[in-house]
């Protein structure tokens, strides 16, 4: 069933992809133009997706609700990290995210905190002063 749903979804995307591509205007002096290649790709993309619909494999084992919740938690941590990175600053944001992720992966609090501190400080030191790729300090700038 999952294969069928995925197949239908991808086939639909292939259709939209092909139609959108058709709207890219052919500039002068470029015989093939920007539209052709995506439209060529859209055809096998859609066809192979339909193969999934016709001949699906066995159903995969999707995660159960509790597992799904853990995964969503972890993703939430990552998204919040990206969101707050520039305001909190790299070291602080990394410390928080790593600590939470390590907890989620089953580490004890002490170990999680230590990992967070180590990575937050370590990666910042490696990238900012050593490699010369500036990272935001955020709140720690004061």
């Amino acid at each position, binding site marked *: 069933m999952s294969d069928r749903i995925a197949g239908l979804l991808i086939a639909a995307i292939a259709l939209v992809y092909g139609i959108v591509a058709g709207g890219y205007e052919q500039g002068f002096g*470029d015989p093939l133009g920007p539209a052709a290649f995506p439209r060529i790709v859209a055809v096998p993309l859609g066809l192979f997706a339909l193969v999934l619909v016709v001949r699906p494999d066995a159903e995969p084992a999707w995660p159960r609700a509790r597992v799904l919740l853990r995964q969503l938690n972890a993703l939430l941590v990552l998204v919040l990290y990206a969101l707050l990175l520039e305001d909190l600053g790299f070291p602080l944001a990394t410390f928080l995210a790593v600590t939470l992720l390590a907890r989620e992966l089953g580490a004890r609090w002490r170990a999680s905190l230590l990992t967070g501190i180590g990575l937050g400080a370590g990666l910042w030191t490696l990238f900012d002063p050593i490699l*010369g790729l*500036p990272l935001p300090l955020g709140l720690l700038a004061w």
Partner: protein
Amino acid sequence: MAMGRWTSAVAAAGVWLSLSAFTPSSVECIAPADPGGGWDFTCRTVGKLLYDLELVKEPVKVTNMAGGVGAVAFSNVAAKRSDDPNLIVATSTVGITQIAQGRYPGDLDVMRWLAMLGADVGVVLVRNDSKYETLDDLLQAYKENPGVAVAAGSSGIGGWDHIRLLMLAKEAGATGEQIKNIRWVQYDGGGPAVTQMLGGHVEVVATDFGEIAGFVESGDVRVLAVMSDERLEAFPDLPTAKEQGVDVVGYNWRGFYLPGKVSDEAYQGWADVMKKLYDSQEWQETAVSKGLTPIWRGGEEFESWVEDQTARMRGISKEIGVIK
């Protein structure tokens, strides 16, 4: 006598002004590209010289912010740092072309255009065994049959390499319809374009001189024209387009813009700093060694020059149908 006193008073006032005026501190230079590219190079070289020449007190921090041929940095500066006087952003003719064709989130007036410090020079070349001996041979051939010699360069259709070539053809009297029909192929750089020409896949290359100088030295290619005001110091044998009666120059300049809402004082202060950098022996040497021709335009003069260049690019882009 009175005259002399007057000038020295102005000079003194000038010194006083530049002393009291804005001096940048904790400067950041945004290179709107990945490390290793042209804009990255501009930031790093100029940043290093600013510090070495003690024009700024702390080392200049270089931040890479790639994306959208500079559009990501442009919109980021406009949105978040529009009054930061200690921020400079590297740009070049490529950035201006994007603006002229409406591919940045905003027009010229969103930023303050600070200065250009040097430029790479456009060049038109063919294989050394090509039947085109002079620029005129090629341009006449294009006028008879625009499809006759496939041209290539490092920019796409409507990019600066392409437009420069079309400007030459147009100046030589080709019609809009004719220049539209000159075939153009885009490669990922001037060097790859030249090797494709040596392999016989294309016939003409129009690109920046710096990247392909090695092929000129080795004699594999024949330069039909360099698109500068004067002949190049390092290659005095190469004819300019101008002296062949085609009055077109095509520089790819390197320079900076400031955020749009910085004070006039900061703007002027920065223009002074850049002028000092430009006048230094160190910059003149660095620029030449990097294949750039040192050219100065700064402050208000630069701003109006950028406006003019943008308008001209917009014009030709419309004419050939790259933009509406």
